[in-house]
């Protein structure tokens, strides 16, 4: 029973991680870029959300309504101003640029919001839970999981069905050939990053509802997103989703064994996947 509970909690936790991982999988799939400041962007958005909530007395969903468009704009600017200049064969420039960005963002946040942990008041939804057969399931984690599933489904549909999705897939298969078909790679990239960061707008609200955030937390979120993408196997949004579930379950079970072992057991599953199935659990060999 205890382990079944851990499994459920793990899946719910996975819903949170999926919201970080989707954007990372998208950006890597399309541009072969890993944005090191991915986690810092979540934290930045969270802190902006918290400030909005406290200054204007907004509820969590109003904050989300404000935050997601802001995140989309942020992503678009990030791509136009920085990443479009460093996309290319050599992974070093993009890595260094986003690394520097991460350093700057973290310290900028420290300056503005101080090192204190904060959280978003949720008006009670963060503590409500339902009991099913002796297992307490938090309402908020369920919402998180549902939103994550919806986002994955939506992104998958966009990629498969929409004009923009086709352009994105074309650019990720062969960017030069895509340009030869009339696609402007830079705008497609900008849209991709706008979506990737836009998803972080949702993640930021949920992250700051379910726990506290502090300027230095970004690194951890980046690592979770990264682990989920690798565990799931690069190449598809559902791979990233499934990888997030595995990571969440690994952490939840580890946490049951020993509270100090939670995050570590996620890392260990990641390293095991790397050792035994480097293409990822659901990736093509």
């Amino acid at each position, binding site marked *: 029973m205890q382990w079944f509970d851990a499994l459920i909690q793990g899946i719910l936790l996975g819903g949170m991680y999926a919201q970080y991982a989707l954007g990372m999988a998208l950006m890597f799939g399309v541009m072969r870029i890993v944005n090191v400041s991915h986690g810092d962007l979540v934290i930045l958005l969270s802190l902006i959300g918290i400030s909005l909530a406290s200054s204007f007395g907004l509820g969590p969903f109003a904050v989300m309504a404000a935050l997601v468009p802001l995140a989309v704009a942020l992503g678009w600017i990030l791509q136009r101003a920085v990443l479009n200049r460093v996309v290319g064969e050599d992974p070093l420039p993009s890595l260094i640029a986003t690394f520097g960005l991460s350093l700057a963002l973290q310290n900028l946040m420290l300056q503005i919001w101080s090192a204190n942990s904060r959280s978003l008041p949720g008006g009670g939804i963060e503590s409500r839970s339902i009991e099913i057969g002796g297992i307490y399931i938090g309402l908020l984690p369920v919402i998180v999981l549902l939103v994550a599933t919806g986002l994955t489904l939506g992104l998958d549909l966009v990629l498969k069905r929409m004009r923009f999705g086709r352009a994105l897939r074309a650019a990720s298969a062969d960017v030069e050939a*895509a340009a*030869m*078909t009339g*696609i402007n790679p830079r705008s497609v990239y900008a849209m991709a990053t706008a979506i990737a960061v836009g998803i972080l707008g949702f993640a930021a609200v949920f992250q700051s509802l379910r726990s506290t955030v502090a300027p230095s937390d970004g690194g951890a979120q980046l690592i979770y997103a990264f682990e989920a993408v690798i565990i799931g196997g690069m190449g598809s949004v559902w791979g990233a989703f499934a990888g997030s579930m595995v990571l969440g379950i690994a952490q939840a079970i580890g946490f049951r064994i020993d509270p100090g072992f939670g995050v570590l057991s996620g890392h260990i599953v990641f390293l095991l996947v790397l050792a035994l199935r480097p293409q990822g659990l659901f990736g093509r060999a």
Partner: protein
Amino acid sequence: MTEVLSTHGLVARYGDFQALYDVDVEVHEGEAVALIGANGAGKSTFLRAILGLLPVKPEMVHLDGKPIGGTPTDRMVQKGVAIVPEGRRLFTGMSVSDNLRVAIDQTSRLGRKGGWTLKRLYQLFPILEEKAKTPVQSLSGGQQQMVSIGRALLCQPRLLLCDEISLGLAPRVIREIYTALPEIRAHGTSIVVVEQDVGLAKSASDRLYCMLEGRVTLTGRSEEITREQIGEAYFGGGHAVV
């Protein structure tokens, strides 16, 4: 005849290495021009330079008499220049129809009009309709080439650049593909074919240019140029072709 495309002293380099030297080529409306030459002669580089994939000065390439050298590739496509690239360069992981849809998407986004529709394309290459849902990577080489040509046609080009479309295909398939060229020209599209196969190039073109070492060494009407002239231009002075 009016000129669709012309290059004037076109020079292109990869880093420190100069690949094209003062190349002057012109393509008239409705005309088919062949570009021949050995490997490394600069034929593909020439196409890449036109398409904005290599940095060139604006005045080096004219489209309809206006300087457009160095315009980004996607904008060149919008201006009506499409390419069937060497090696086909299809979007792997996507179906035949999705590969074609990408081109349709872009022309409709930009409001470019033209005579090519999916239906018409399927009439030209009926096999593609049959394989519409098949992922492109599991097609045969010839079918892949048809997708690549189809994708370029759906960009509604006024000028179609074909880079070694016979490469690695069986003679029967090559014939099949080359018989589509007159049909394409019938739409008023000018064509530049880059070929290694001299016979094919001669029969498919009105005029031809032979390149060697980044320079044009021979040009003239295709039916007037002799095999000996080509041999000399192809390999450098003194060599006879077989």
